[in-house]
């Protein structure tokens, strides 16, 4: 598709132009339908609540969500809550990816260490990390640090396993090639293993965005005094579903934006490698 677009218009046959037009139409149709579904959902929700088909006290409704959104905004708290949660999430997934990659490098370097740690990693990987929440609170305190620790705990082990696996599956002949030039282990790492695994690392960044959101929201459920997770818990406790729904919607938007941000980063960094 890309190559065809680059070509000048006059060497495209009429049949091909027809095909491209049909594809474009189809794509537009998908997009329009998606938008209709979204709008339709909110309209139905609003209508059902207005005509008392559903109890807006329990289900909330779009107009109430907008109201609670503007209220929050007027109180000057909206951005603060969003910022706190986003900050914790970003720190969580960046740390998770960075520390995970570093540990993977160490385990790649020392096969002995990798063998020794293997069963522990497997156990840690299958352990539901949420169970560690209370431990973090006792150890680190009921604050943002515990929340970030929670996010980190969820993403770290997966990252280590994923990245190490990528490191170990690098073509042995590529390593042999640099060794014929006399490369030492550090050069094997920096010239072959790391660049070859950039897609793996970015991919784990993508996974970690999602996992970090889970960790942060759970962490906020447990300890926080601010943030979207806190708003959700608080809203639930005082039976203010408007607040809960508003927070969930903001969360959905923020998570999607952050994911798209990483996808964008991937495109910039991995442009060269995915082109083939």
């Amino acid at each position, binding site marked *: 598709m890309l190559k065809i677009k680059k070509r000048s218009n006059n060497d495209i046959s009429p049949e091909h132009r027809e095909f491209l037009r049909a594809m474009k139409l189809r794509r537009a149709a998908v997009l329009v339908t998606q938008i209709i579904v979204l709008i339709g959902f909110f309209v139905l929700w609003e209508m059902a609540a207005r005509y008392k088909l559903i109890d807006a006290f329990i289900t909330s409704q779009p107009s109430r969500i907008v109201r609670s959104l503007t209220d929050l905004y007027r109180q000057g708290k909206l951005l603060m809550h969003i910022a706190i949660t986003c900050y914790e999430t970003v720190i969580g997934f960046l740390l998770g990816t960075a520390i995970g990659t570093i540990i993977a490098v160490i385990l790649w370097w020392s096969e002995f260490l990798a063998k020794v740690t293997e069963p522990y990693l497997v156990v840690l990987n299958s352990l539901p990390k949420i169970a560690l929440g209370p431990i973090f609170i006792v150890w680190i305190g009921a604050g943002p640090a515990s929340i970030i620790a929670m996010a980190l705990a969820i993403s770290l082990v997966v990252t280590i396993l994923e990245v190490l696996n990528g490191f170990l599956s690098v073509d042995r002949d*590529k390593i042999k090639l640099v*060794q014929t*030039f006399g490369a030492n282990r550090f050069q094997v790492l920096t010239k072959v293993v790391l660049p*070859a695994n950039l897609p793996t690392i970015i991919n784990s960044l993508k996974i970690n965005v999602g996992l970090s959101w889970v960790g942060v929201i759970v962490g906020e459920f447990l300890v926080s005094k601010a943030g979207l997770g806190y708003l959700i818990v608080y809203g639930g406790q005082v039976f203010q579903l408007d607040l809960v729904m508003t927070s969930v919607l903001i969360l959905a938007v923020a998570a999607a934006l952050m994911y798209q941000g990483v996808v964008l980063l991937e495109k910039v960094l991995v442009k*060269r490698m995915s*082109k083939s």
Partner: protein
Amino acid sequence: MIKLEPIVEVINVAMKYQSLNGEIHALKDISFSVDKGEFVSIVGPSGCGKSTLLSIISGLLAPTSGMVLIDGEKVTGTSKKVGYMLQKDHLFNWRTILGNVLLGLEIRGEVTPESREYALNLLRSYGLYEFKDKYPEQLSGGMRQRAALIRTLATKPEILLLDEAFSALDYQTRLAVSEDIYKIIKKEGKTAILVTHDISESISMADRVIVLTKRPATIKNIHKIEFSCNNRTPISCRDAPEFRHYFNRIWKELDIHVEN
């Protein structure tokens, strides 16, 4: 034409691999020497340890016994005098062609304005200069293999070890590339050792063909290859009357049976 001084001497080399499943006796008492500027092919049945032999000459592997001398010095690790070419080009798709060509120099910490210019000149001489900022996937298989050779030549080795260097290519490309690489190696005046399982390829390129036996490999015979034709190249010599004669003899020596 050929200066008769040995640049590579392989002396009583033997190799045993250890694994949990036992011991593999790959090479048994291999001795031969290669003169400066000579092109030597090594053929043998698959799995006979040809590549192992090349790894030992390159210093990547230490032999169980025996030794290899390069320019009279014992090989203990990878040497700057030796360049190695693998079966696939292994150009890194995250580097440009120039970046790939400079890889060896970079690893040795030898990227200087002069060495860079030398590499650029090689690209210029062999028609890849205009592709220097392109990425490997934008090049054809033949061009990639040529870029891989330039990557090796950029480090100015005296000896080139070609480890089944053409066998990943399809047949037509392979003929063209081996012709291409042969001419470059001759023009640069390098010594070359080619390991291959392709008898025709081994005859068409080499001054001498060393035939190995099955594992544990020993040298069965060494054939001096001489053609009556002028301006010998790998493709042209395939027409020479001697070609079939060499082929038949080596084929018989390889003693390959299809067993059920």
